[in-house]
């Protein structure tokens, strides 16, 4: 390979790398295994459960609004094979701890301080929740929190997934 061709190939590769980004997780695909992302906090057992993974942050106003509603949803569907897991993308621990103390959610939370999981999933907005079926397959994505509308559609979808045969 001649020298200009080598340089051109190298530049083309650099260009391709600069333009590329991790692929967004799509509906119908397996959701990434959470255990592989060094999340801070205890992960609940998700095996064979319908899981709602909610990405949030303390600086995100709609996330704050979603917590009381999601707590109610988690309480309502507790013991039916449903787990709501909130994943904070806060880089620092202080605001995260304060937030949890203030809101005392009725569901488990973990912190993705290194923002590896959120970057892998390519969350389109804050907050975004991912509904995963008993087999670990992503079934729907809810971008943002739109109050009662979001809660209603989530409840319907979760109940539908809970009624599916394992």
């Amino acid at each position, binding site marked *: 390979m001649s020298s200009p061709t080598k340089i*051109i190939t190298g530049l083309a590769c650099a260009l391709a790398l600069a333009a590329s980004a991790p692929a967004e997780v799509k509906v119908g695909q397996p959701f990434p295994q959470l255990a592989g992302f060094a999340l801070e906090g205890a992960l609940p057992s998700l095996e064979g459960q319908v899981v709602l993974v909610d990405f949030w942050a303390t600086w995100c106003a709609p996330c704050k609004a979603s917590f009381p509603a999601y707590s109610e949803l988690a309480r309502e569907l507790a013991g039916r094979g449903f787990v709501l897991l909130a994943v904070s993308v806060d880089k620092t621990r202080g605001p995260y701890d304060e937030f949890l103390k203030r809101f005392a959610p009725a569901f488990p939370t973990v912190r993705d301080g290194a923002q590896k999981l959120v970057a892998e999933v390519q969350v389109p907005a804050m907050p975004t929740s991912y509904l995963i079926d008993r087999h670990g397959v992503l079934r729907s994505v809810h971008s943002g929190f739109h109050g009662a509308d979001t809660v209603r559609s989530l409840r319907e979808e979760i109940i539908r997934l809970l009624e599916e045969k394992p």
Partner: protein
Amino acid sequence: MKSPRLLLLVLAGLTTLLAGCTTVHPWERAALADYAMRPDRDPVHNTMMEHIYFSREASSGGRGVGGSGCGCN
């Protein structure tokens, strides 16, 4: 100019331009969401800015303040 050289130049230019681009992802907006980033966080500053706009651009309404544009109100 020979074709490979031109291609080289274009690619080098594109690489340089793209390397300077960045996307602030939704999960990276903590600093942008901070209260200090709000342009209307200081009421005194707001009043002063409105007065300046009113004085300088009264013909276009001065950010909602009515008047002649003398800046003397």
